[in-house]
């Protein structure tokens, strides 16, 4: 692939107004990040995985393509996943959205030399942009970035460097530390594509929770002998997130939380099957930007695969 971009940015979402004005927040952040990357000369593509779309509403992928028609078919690629996959894969009926399996769908299909898994409302800081512009990222290194949470209820009509970098707007810094560099890791995980495929993406074996699946990936990467580093730049997010806002509601009943039981042993890792990321799902192009993944049982692995639950101390290599 001669025209393969340097970077693929993978995000997931759907048209459900999650967190309020989800689409507006998504589009603003994407517009900002795209502008900064383009200005810095970083060749990139966005891969959007729409998981469990809401019946009766436009696909968010369709609205995205309309809003960002300037990105072209190579700049923006979306995969809409048949909602039946969610039901077939779920091991916890309270989990409304399998965020990390959705991201795996995108990661598996990324074309960039490096793959950045992040979220729809994340703004990349200057340090990250300049690091990417150097084109000196190394293979076998998992790059992490600290997330700065801006105050939740600020005016976001015009979000630019003056707002992001003014510390008066910052509520908290989610610091990251070796060796695992967890803490809001789902917002910034950057790794070369080959290593992503060696690790086989995020944990698809443990599907009872989505909380800590990102930190679990960091453990997996570490256990597989990858180097984990702080990239030297930060990302920005408005507010401290839905989890932080709601975690107190489930303190006395963690098993009922919509993100799964927070107490699960996320330091135990996994070996995903070869068909990770719905690799066997058929693909139907909907338009220049969008591909639909219709449901097929063939693409759904076993409901339970206990042999794929492994301890992190052992060097996993290519399992």
């Amino acid at each position: 692939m001669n025209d393969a971009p340097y970077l693929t940015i993978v995000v997931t979402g759907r048209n459900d107004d999650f967190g309020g004005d989800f689409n507006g927040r998504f589009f603003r952040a994407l517009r900002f990040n795209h502008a900064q990357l383009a200005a810095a000369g970083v060749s990139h593509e966005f891969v959007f995985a729409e998981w469990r779309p809401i019946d009766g509403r436009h696909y968010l992928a369709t609205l995205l393509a309309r809003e960002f028609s300037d990105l072209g078919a190579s700049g923006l690629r979306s995969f809409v996943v048949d909602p039946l996959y969610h039901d077939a894969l779920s091991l916890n009926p309270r989990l409304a959205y399998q965020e990390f399996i959705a991201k795996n769908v995108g990661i598996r299909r990324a074309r960039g030399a490096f793959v950045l898994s992040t979220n729809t409302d994340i703004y990349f800081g200057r340090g990250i942009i300049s690091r990417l512009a150097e084109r000196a990222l190394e293979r076998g290194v998992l790059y992490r970035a600290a997330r700065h949470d801006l105050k939740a209820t600020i005016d976001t009509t015009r979000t630019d460097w003056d707002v992001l970098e003014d510390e008066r707007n910052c509520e908290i810094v989610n610091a990251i530390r070796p060796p695992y560099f967890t803490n809001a890791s789902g917002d910034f995980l950057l790794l070369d594509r080959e290593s992503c495929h060696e690790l086989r993406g995020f944990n698809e074996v443990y599907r009872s929770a989505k909380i800590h699946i990102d930190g679990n990936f960091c453990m997996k990467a570490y256990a597989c002998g990858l180097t984990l580093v702080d990239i030297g730049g930060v990302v920005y997010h408005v507010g401290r997130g839905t989890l932080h806002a709601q975690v107190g509601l489930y303190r006395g009943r963690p098993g009922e939380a919509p993100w799964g039981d927070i107490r699960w042993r996320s330091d135990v890792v996994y070996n995903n099957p070869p068909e990770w990321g719905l690799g066997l799902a058929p693909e139907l192009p909907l338009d220049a930007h969008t591909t639909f993944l219709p449901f097929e049982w063939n693409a759904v692995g076993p409901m339970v695969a206990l042999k794929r639950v492994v301890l992190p101390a052992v060097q996993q290599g290519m399992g």
Partner: protein
Amino acid sequence: MAPLSDRSSVTSHDRTPPTVSIVLTGRNDDYGVGFEARFFRTLRFNHRELTSRGIAYELVFIEWAPPQDRPRLVDRVFDAVPDLDPGVCRWYVVDAQYQAALSLNPRLVYLEFVAKNVGVRRAAGRFVLTSNCDVYFGRVVLDALARGSLMDGVVYRAARYDLKAEIGDGNPGWPEIEDPANLDGRPRSLRPPFMAGGTGDFVLLDRGTFHEMRGFNEVYRVARIGIDRNFLVKALSMGLTIEDIGGPVYHVNHAGSYRLTVHDYEGREGEAPWGNRRWHSSGVVYNNAPAWGLSEAPQRQLAKGVWFLDFSWDAVPPLVDLRGVVLPVSRLGGPRPGRYVSRM
């Protein structure tokens, strides 16, 4: 006729878009005693001065919830101001049910800034100037409009000078308006960064930015006082510059005006007809809904340049939209735009 959509053309006249849209609102309810006469006098003056300087402008007038038992202003204005070319006017009469449906305070009898938003949303001019019916534009203001050197992204403000009520009884000209002896109280100056003070009498901004802001606050409909100042806080939060245009506008005092009656409600601010002035207009801003300015209101043409906005619940924003209540952001090198004022 279909409601106004985000991307539809706002002009109904086949002509080049004007340099400035002047947005005013009012109705024939004898507000402040002799409202109609005051309005027509001011309009005659401003129209004469604008046209004599060759300023291409349109008048966008919002006749908000007019009383049923009186003639509408639109039916009298062209007789009262014969020089006023209907071709430069667009008049919107808004169904009175919108006042009841939108108000969150029964004492608020006129949602002035929602009305102005109706005009801002529909303005065709490159720049939009929101003002009031009894405000005379000063020379510096007129010259600035004539020069055509206004910049995008700048909120232009003008200090408001209050004139003695009796000045408005005749047909004042420049000698009466500019005579310091006719000032009612010390002339105020505008202070950075907010440049507040009589803000509702003069806000001038390019249409694109005005639309990006989505006009004045439609989320907080419990008061109309402070909504203009709140606009300035939002502007600073967005990183806009607020500038003094360099000269004043003149307001003729009259019975019932805010400045003359504000102290009548000391200790019972909640009963004031403009709402409680102690709400956090300096500290909290807003994100209006995409359908701001009653953009979804069905409108039918009554006459050339005159429309009626029929009532439809589809056009009414949610009664409560708490997500639209946001804090202003600080910007590098700029002042903290929000200001805490205790309500105690």
